[in-house]
């Protein structure tokens, strides 16, 4: 609460109700995603001035496409984190989905069928995660850590740990889907925009979204209102797996080949993107915009290190600092709120 929040005399109850606590501006300033956005914008601006390689259409195209995969998976991760959970298996799920796609297409199946099967395999991973977490009450960290290992192993078994780089009759279509562009925008970026809008809509405008926020903040209270907490949890992990599955299909098309180390340790960048964007690992908070901006910031940092000729070994240091900074920012704000 702000200091102007202290009791005032109101002419009527209606005045009191209409009286807005926060101005629109102060509300924006309080949003972590806004500050991350500013940070990313400043980084871009500085790079555009310092280097003559950053602001080229080709580089911008590459940057946006590169972060699209992390950002798509981060959308699902954000939903999981809002619900109070975590999903460490997204990188492996992405790999499994890409591998199922690759093997089926390699065997001569059409793209649509293979993509459906790929996403179905991802959804199955999410379903197993969700059932174990919701019904057996095994901590999400443990279940998805196990699944991280399991799903990647499944991809290895399926492919006999070989790289797949021939995709049958629909190969061109797949490469166009993941590696092509329309209106000068890379297809993964278009997919990201559409999926981000969808996720934002679901979180803000559906009962499902409200319930995800509710269980993240107070699971018991949510259960007492009659919300189906267990089913909701399963849906949340399936949502995360779905986004990983979609990203897997797109990334297979972009790379033009699938190996079993695809998406390895991707969960770290994905969680980092969500957290930098304001998702609270304790649950109950997170935004779509924030996670996309968080993913963008990570990629801009990576890109800038390359352009500035700094060793990419430094990337981890920057991303790590940003994670800690983002959480520290949140803590400071909470402390300030408490001290009022």
């Amino acid at each position, binding site marked *: *609460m702000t200091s102007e*929040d202290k009791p005032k005399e*109101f002419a009527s*109850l209606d005045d*009191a*109700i209409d*009286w807005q*606590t926060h101005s629109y501006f102060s509300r924006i300033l309080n949003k972590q995603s806004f500050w991350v956005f500013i940070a990313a914008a400043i980084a871009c601006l500085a790079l555009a001035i310092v280097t003559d390689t950053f602001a080229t259409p080709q580089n911008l195209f590459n940057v946006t496409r590169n972060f699209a995969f992390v950002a798509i998976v981060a959308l699902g991760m954000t939903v999981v984190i809002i619900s109070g959970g975590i999903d460490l298996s997204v990188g492996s799920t992405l790999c499994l989905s890409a591998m199922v796609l690759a093997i089926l297409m390699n065997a001569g199946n059409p793209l649509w069928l293979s993509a459906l099967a790929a996403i179905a395999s991802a959804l199955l991973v999410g379903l197993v995660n969700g059932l174990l977490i919701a019904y057996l009450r095994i901590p999400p960290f443990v279940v998805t850590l196990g699944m991280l290992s399991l799903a990647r192993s499944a991809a290895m078994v399926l492919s006999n740990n070989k790289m797949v780089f021939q995709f049958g009759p629909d190969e061109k279509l797949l490469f166009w889907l993941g590696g092509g562009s329309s209106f000068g925008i890379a297809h993964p970026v278009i997919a990201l925009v559409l999926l981000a809008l969808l996720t934002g809509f679901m979180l*803000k*405008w*559906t*009962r499902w979204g*409200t*319930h995800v*926020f*509710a269980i*993240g*903040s*107070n699971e*018991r*209270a*949510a259960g*007492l*209102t*009659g*919300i189906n907490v267990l089913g909701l949890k399963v849906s949340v992990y399936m949502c995360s797996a779905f986004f990983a599955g979609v990203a897997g299909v797109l990334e297979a098309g972009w790379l033009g080949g699938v190996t079993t180390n695809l998406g390895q340790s991707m969960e770290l960048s994905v969680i980092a993107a969500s957290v930098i964007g304001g998702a609270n690992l304790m649950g*109950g*908070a997170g935004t779509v915009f924030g996670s996309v901006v968080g993913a963008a910031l990570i990629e801009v940092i990576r890109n800038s290190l390359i352009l500035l000729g700094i060793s990419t070994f430094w990337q981890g240091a920057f991303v790590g600092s940003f994670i800690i900074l983002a959480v520290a920012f949140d803590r400071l704000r909470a402390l300030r709120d408490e001290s009022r």
Partner: protein
Amino acid sequence: MSVLRLEWISKHFGAIQALEEVSLSLEPGEVLGLMGDNGAGKSTLVKIIAGNYRPSDGRIYIGDVQKDFHHPIEARESGIEIVYQDLALCDNLTAATNVFLGRELTRSFGPFRVMDFGSMNAAAAKLFKELKSETRPKDLVRDMSGGQRQAVAIARTRLASAKIVLMDEPTAAISVRQVAEVLNLIRELKHQQIAVILISHRMPDVFAVADRITVLRRGRKVADKPVSETTPEEVTGLITGAIQAA
């Protein structure tokens, strides 16, 4: 006719006997003050009525019908609402969203059903007004005072046209001004012919709004009398055991 009747309710948790053969009845529009020392069994009793626990023994009648609740939702469907000791609200949601949580209003948007925030905010504003509370529907519960949180929790109970509202220590841990607010909320419920069970350790609050006082001691009912026929001193004696029964 009574809205609620309990007959010989007992409850044990393993070896702990939390309630022993408690009987009770409640009229429409009646406010019952439920008092007793820490661990006397007050919360357990209201949680049994609200369907959180099943009694080990005894019967519950709502109106004339015997009930056996397995889940809080079944109790709510019978017109029983409970305001928990810890309120059970979601801090990160607005007052209006909390009021409607689990029974949100929606409208159609193309093929979808979307949240109807406008209607929910308006309806919540109306409820807060009925309760004469200065609670703003769009404020986050996180930023609210204890009294406003109580108003949100109580407004929830008003949605379902409850017949019985159970309140577990609604005046603990809030300021004097807010206590007055909550007591007014209770009077407002009574005025609308809703029966209330009020658990409180605060003697003045109970004497201010209750029609009748029931005292539990170590899981047993030791007194049940109209407020006009007892005094704070007597009730204190009953709670501590200085007076055996009345």
